């Protein structure tokens, strides 16, 4: 109705235009505000994580926090060294990547290059489904299935050891296995996309030079998909280092050096399992651990944007 009215001659086109322009401006402002929301969110998150994470640093001292290995927040003489916690996150993530990435990339190769289209059409949705399964379920299976199995292995391995502290199977190795499984879908999906994006002419060139199928895949297609695969690995690192609920119970409940059959705490699991009963400096320290995790994630993000930019530059 409105539109029809403005077509009528002499319907005050100037006035119509002006109110339209106001709506137009309002719309633009609203949309800009919506878009700026992400900036606001990241800024606030950064601000509050820094604000809540720094008090403990001043109280305890950065050196003690980062370089002491003793974490005894509830002792009479509390100690707040998180070196082992940091190392656990680094080593645990590294091992999970070492375990998960080869399996993931090879599965991606299978989906994109080896499998029959019909087989791929079944396997691919299955992998996508794997990505959607909540992390608590991985945790549940970890604690119910993996830990007892690990405990059996542990008892057998250390049957003659007098000093080994038995973990009941809740140890670094269990957590690493859960993490490796959890990063699989990310690695598979992104690597597969990258492999499929390699132009067929690259494959043809390699085959025409007398390359076998396997040589062609591993010497020309994968190198050509390199930047996508690196992206997959970096995202996998991000996912592994940030995962909490799946490994909180699986990894055990005390802070130790990251050795396979030791009960360990990751940056994430320390926060989750102690937040409930912490107070005072202990609670502030948990925020400091959060801040350390945040720094790790930001570094990973920066690496990711670098990789993506570089990948975008080469045609």
């Amino acid at each position, binding site marked *: 109705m409105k539109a029809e009215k403005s077509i009528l001659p002499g319907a005050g086109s100037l006035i119509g235009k002006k109110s339209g322009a106001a709506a137009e401006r309002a719309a633009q402002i609203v949309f800009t505000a919506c878009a700026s929301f992400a900036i606001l969110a990241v800024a606030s998150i950064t601000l509050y994580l820094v604000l809540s994470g720094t008090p403990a640093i001043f109280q305890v001292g950065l050196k003690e926090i980062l370089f002491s290995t003793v974490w005894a927040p509830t002792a009479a003489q509390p100690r707040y060294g998180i070196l082992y916690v940091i190392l656990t996150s680094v080593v645990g993530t590294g091992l999970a990547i070492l375990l998960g990435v080869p399996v993931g990339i090879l599965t991606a190769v299978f989906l994109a290059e080896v499998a029959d289209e019909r087989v791929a059409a079944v396997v691919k949705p299955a992998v996508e489904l794997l990505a959607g399964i909540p992390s608590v379920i991985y945790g549940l299976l970890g604690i119910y299935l993996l830990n007892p199995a690990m405990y059996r292995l542990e008892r057998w391995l250390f049957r003659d050891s007098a000093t080994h502290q038995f973990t009941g199977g809740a140890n670094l190795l269990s957590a690493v296995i859960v993490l490796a499984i959890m990063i699989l879908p990310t690695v598979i999906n992104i690597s597969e996309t990258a492999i499929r994006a390699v132009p067929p002419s690259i494959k043809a060139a390699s085959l025409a030079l*007398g390359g076998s199928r396997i040589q062609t895949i591993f010497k020309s297609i994968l190198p050509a998909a390199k930047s996508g695969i690196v992206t997959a690995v970096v995202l996998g690192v991000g996912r592994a280092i940030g995962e909490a609920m799946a490994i909180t119970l699986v990894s055990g409940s005390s802070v130790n050096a990251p050795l396979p059959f030791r009960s360990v705490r990751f940056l994430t699991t320390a926060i989750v399992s102690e937040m409930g009963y912490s107070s005072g400096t202990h609670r502030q320290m948990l925020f400091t651990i959060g801040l350390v995790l945040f720094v790790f994630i930001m570094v990973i993000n920066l690496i990711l944007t670098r990789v993506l930019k570089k990948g975008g530059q080469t045609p």
Partner: protein
Amino acid sequence: MEKSKLLVKDLNLYYGANRALKDVEMEIRDKAVTALIGPSGCGKSTFLKCINRMNDLVENVRIRGQVLLDGENIYDRRVDTTLLRKKVGMVFQQPNPFPMSIYDNVAYGPRLHGVKAKQELDSIVEEALKGAAIFEEVKDRLKKPALGLSGGQQQRLCIARALAVRPEVLLMDEPTSALDPISTSKVEELMEALKKSYTVVVVTHNMQQAARVSDDTAFFLLGAVVEFGPTAALFSRPRDKRTEDYITGRFG
């Protein structure tokens, strides 16, 4: 010149139910350039890909008949296709260098076939680049990405890459159709030079090019060879009316 390198006998190719090549017979001479011409969709590229079995990759393709390379049927069950493709190299319509350095592109083939020693690779790369008349242009930037080269240079690099595995036959699928005139003439000169050491089979949509560079020419139409013979004769005295129509530009 007179010895035959490839002998094609009664070759038929089907895409599903569609018969794309019909009873093709051809004798391709050693150390000569054979041109395949015809309107698009006539089967000349499909035929070319039969000679190094690149059609194996296409789904639903069935091939009947024989292609004899030095007397051995390349469609025999016992044939190792990687060995075949090492002997029968190929250059594609669009330059398709790997996203690697110039050196690694040329060294790719030899490495596949087990050459590891640095010195040997160096000399193979240099020889291949010289063979493709591009060595002078790239010798100072062998470690630079191949994708930084111009289209014409990329195509000659692809020729060098094919030469580096020391093939006996070189198949070229419209190698100049994506290139500018200057690059085209360089590649044409190259073909002249290449036939001293290689048997060259080139698909072209450009009849002047076929006339300029080839010794023999085959004219394809609807999947069949209409006429095949020495280029000079085919262009000056075509025996078939359809050949004459095509080379005089009446269709295609």
